[in-house]
């Protein structure tokens, strides 16, 4: 074989090998891209289902079935959404207000919050929070931060030791997402809009709430399913 002929053959062979190598690399890249996209979809689906399930579970367990929430209708669950708990400072009450130490996920807001107040007879009273006034040293022994006067409408005579702060709201499955609506405000999305239109919120047997959450995403999508969220306590 001449030297010239050998060089041409080697060049062709190198070209073929390189072409194969590039082709293989492109294939791997493409598959890895698909795997990454699937992983992203899985994670988003998992987050969506997890967040929805967690939020609904926590909200339902915080309330009493039949009093604080009732069976969902048309994928809508209206409820009292509890946002804090307060211990009532004894011997410091006035005819229309009580001194409390409050702890919760946010500060009380008379514009949107109401109160469930336990009386000495074990009965809960739903009252409007008309005003609040933070104070620091009026309740001996209580932590300074979080101590405040609450002015309430229709305060009962035998005020008990505990009050709970809540806002009225509703959860919806709409436009592919779990959404929360406080009062008459708009529905704010709490999850990515990944849910299938077949996802449902409905009443289950025994006072539970059946949650069907489906995240479309092709074969192997594991995030979805049906759960029944049971009430921790039911109204008498």
């Amino acid at each position, binding site marked *: 074989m001449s030297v010239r002929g050998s060089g041409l053959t080697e060049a062709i062979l190198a*070209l073929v090998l390189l072409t194969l190598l590039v082709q293989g690399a492109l294939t791997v*890249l493409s598959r890895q891209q698909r795997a990454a996209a699937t992983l992203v979809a899985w994670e988003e689906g998992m987050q969506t289902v997890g967040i929805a399930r*967690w939020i609904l579970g926590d909200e339902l367990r915080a309330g009493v079935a039949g009093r604080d929430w009732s069976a969902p209708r048309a994928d809508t669950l209206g409820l009292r959404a509890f946002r804090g708990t307060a211990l009532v400072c004894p011997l410091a009450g006035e005819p229309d207000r009580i001194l409390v130490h409050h702890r919760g996920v946010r500060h009380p807001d008379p514009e949107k919050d109401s109160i469930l107040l336990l009386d000495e007879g074990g009965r809960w009273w739903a009252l409007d929070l008309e005003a609040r006034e933070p104070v620091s040293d009026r309740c001996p022994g209580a932590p300074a931060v979080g101590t405040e006067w609450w002015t309430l409408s229709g305060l009962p005579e035998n005020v008990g030791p505990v009050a709970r702060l809540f806002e009225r709201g509703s959860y919806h499955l709409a436009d592919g997402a779990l959404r929360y609506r406080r009062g008459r405000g708009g529905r704010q999305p709490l999850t990515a809009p990944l849910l299938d239109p077949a996802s449902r919120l409905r009443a289950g047997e025994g006072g539970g709430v059946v949650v069907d959450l489906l995240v479309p995403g092709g074969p192997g999508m594991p995030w979805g399913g049906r759960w029944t969220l049971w009430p921790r306590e039911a109204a008498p």
Partner: protein
Amino acid sequence: MSRVGVALPVLLLLVLALAALSHGVLVLARDALSSVRAWTAVVQGRVAAEVGVKGVTEAVPAGTDGLGSPPGLWEARTVVEGDLGPRVRYRVRLRRLGPEFRLLEGEGRVELEGASRRVARVVWTLDPVARLGSAEAVAEVGGRVGIESEAAVSGHGIGLDPEGWPPGACDPYREALDSLFPEGLLAATAPLPVDPRSRPGLGLLPLDTLLARADVTFHPGGRGSPAPEVEEGACVAVSSNWGHPGDPTAPCGDRLVLVAGTGSLTMEGGQGQGILAVAGDLRMDRDAHFAGVVLVGGRLEIENDARIEGIVRVGGDLEVRDAGVVLGRGCSALRALEAATGLGEPVYPAGGSWLSPY
């Protein structure tokens, strides 16, 4: 540039792209794993907190007093600590909200993730002194009150010993009685301070619960005259023996019973002491004598020298006539409430007892 020279940079670029993509996938996978772990930790924390609180309430059926006295409203005392696994721990603290209300605070913690969740539960346990102190009158009546001229309902001797008792028999209750009634007075009658549709109970213990926990029950429409029964100097615990209220030193003087029934009852003479809970009407006739706490869902009639010493709660009308009397006696009421150990179990407010967020 030769073809080899073009292919090599392309290949290197592809390798770089692959490496970047792999790194992204790895980061994404770790993020997903972290969020799953965090979510699991939060759920584990919540479960641990609830398990702790439930464990305490189920392990102390005789009431939270079995856990010792909590220091006060703003000082919680740890009563239980435990774990649900190698990394999941819980702690339950007890806080005193008032004479009868307690708060059990559960905290669950997952150590590595540092996640912590808290829940609390309101518990009510009957306190005899607080119960007596909640009485606004000797007779709290949901309906009409009728007291004839020769009959009486009196709260003037609320701090006195029951008639015929030896001196000192009420000394164990003297401090509490002096504290509750410093002037020795309690109003004779007052409206029943409960929902008129409900039957009178004891605090958070409704009449139905008292019926379920009774020592002695009677049939609807029952009639009888209970009397102390003694054999060989010892008191015999039979259903017709409701104790001896006239003499605490007698063999049956320390027998106090929780008598309850779903229907009406007529006491035709006889005597007893403790707690008498009648869902229907109660008629006391012919020298019948009961000392302690009397709860009546319907109408209460006291006539022909019949006598109640203690306090009374009536859902319907109260009729006292023909020398019948209701004498307010705090000592008899406290003694009856203290003796009812079956009523010391924790009770949870019917409209919800769990508190979260807390």
